[in-house]
């Protein structure tokens, strides 16, 4: 009775998903992801999001750096996901610059706001602007650095429609859902 032989996959995916629940619930805070077998170009965190959430109904857009045979094969073999264009993508993966402009991604429709893209932003080599964020999941206003904060402000203005973001870096994940309000802190020079 004591130790049921649970499949390793189902245990690992449960632990990964719980990190995603925490990250999505507490925007702007960093949460840890475990290592997994994945293509070298993908971070552990980004690979975890894809493998935990995607199935054969998921459209995934891979930006140029990530659209390699290795990534495509890994994703299709493990999830059955469909490699798609920007317009139809449910999940999007790329560096910040490679995904701009954001206006091609789907933001949902008033009756079904959840039919929107989830963007996974890899790497942190973007111009950072100091911001102050507030909204659901944020206890006290939080200071974080964001690329092009004006785009996140525009996204929040679409609420309850909009895009949901995860920033991934090696084993770390941080979320900025559409509900997060952004204030730009004036740079000091």
């Amino acid at each position, binding site marked *: 009775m004591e130790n049921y032989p649970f499949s390793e996959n189902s245990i690992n995916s449960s632990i990964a998903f719980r990190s995603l629940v925490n990250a999505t619930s507490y925007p702007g805070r960093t949460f840890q992801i475990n290592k997994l077998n994945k293509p070298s170009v993908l971070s552990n965190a980004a690979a975890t999001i894809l493998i935990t959430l995607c199935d054969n109904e998921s459209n995934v857009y891979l930006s140029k750096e990530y659209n390699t045979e290795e990534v495509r094969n890994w994703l299709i073999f493990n999830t059955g996901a469909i490699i798609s264009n920007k317009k139809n993508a449910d999940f999007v993966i790329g560096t910040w610059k490679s995904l701009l402009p954001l206006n091609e991604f789907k933001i949902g429709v008033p009756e079904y706001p959840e039919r*929107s893209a989830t963007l996974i932003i890899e790497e942190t080599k973007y111009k950072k602007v100091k911001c102050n964020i507030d909204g659901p999941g944020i*206890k006290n206003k939080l200071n974080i650095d964001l690329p092009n904060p004006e785009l996140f402000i525009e996204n929040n203005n679409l609420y*309850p429609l909009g895009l949901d973001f995860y920033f991934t870096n090696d084993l770390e994940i941080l979320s900025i859902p559409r509900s997060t309000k952004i204030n730009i802190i004036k740079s000091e020079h």
Partner: protein
Amino acid sequence: MNEMSKNENLDIQIYNFAYLDENTKRMIRRALLKALCIPGYQVPFSSREMPMPYGWGTGGIQVTSACLIPKDILKVIDQGADDTTNAVSIRKFFQKTANVAVTEKTSDASLIQTRHRIPETKLKEKQILVYQVPIPEPLRFLEPRETETRKMHALSEYGLMYVKLYEDIAKHGHIETAYAYPVKTNGNYVTDPSPIPKFDNPKMNNSPAIQLFGAGREQRIYAIPPYTNVKSLDFEDYPFEAMKANFKCSICGSSDSYLDEIIVSDDGKRSYICSDTDYCKEQTKLNSKKED
């Protein structure tokens, strides 16, 4: 068991952790994350057959199954009590299918599945409260058509809801609704808090914990993230009041917890006790310490 596979070398059966298969969990998990991104909005999902009938919390069970991890400590309550048939059978189900630890203590639990109550003990960050929801649509009694209620939510057309509440005031001098009292989540969607007493509504507001809602028969999932504004609908001249019976618990003496009325003798004598059995035990312990 659902979807079990065989490990041929060892000839043992490999089970899916927490019952549901991985494909179902992926679908539920996507719905849950979108629900957290759009507080109070009802995300449709394809509810699965569970080994218990609707009305037994199959929506909550599916949400719990999708969220549970091996190191969770699970608490299950029904009307505030851990020992009712419904709570016991759900707890046993997850002990068997996920081998997780269980507790009756709110403060020790990492995931709490509930029917009809929010624990009295203040919840903490990263605790997950999963609500079993029979009717997720707060506008259902005004408008039975799903296409219409969807439009009303999309346009924030909640005038009818206020009219209904105001009619109550005109008729009874106060708002009659005592359970499933509607709330507005993050200033946007009107949301059904499940059939909790309105006494519990203020606990939903700005809670550090993660609140997830599952409706199995109606196939809806919704969420209230932590630190989210949750406001019970009211009027300037008739502000919302989270009232309770003006009595003390006859076991622990608490006057600030939600009480159940019980008949204590054959001649119909009444008494009041905490609906939250864990809270009542904790208060009783505190009292005996004070006396020592």
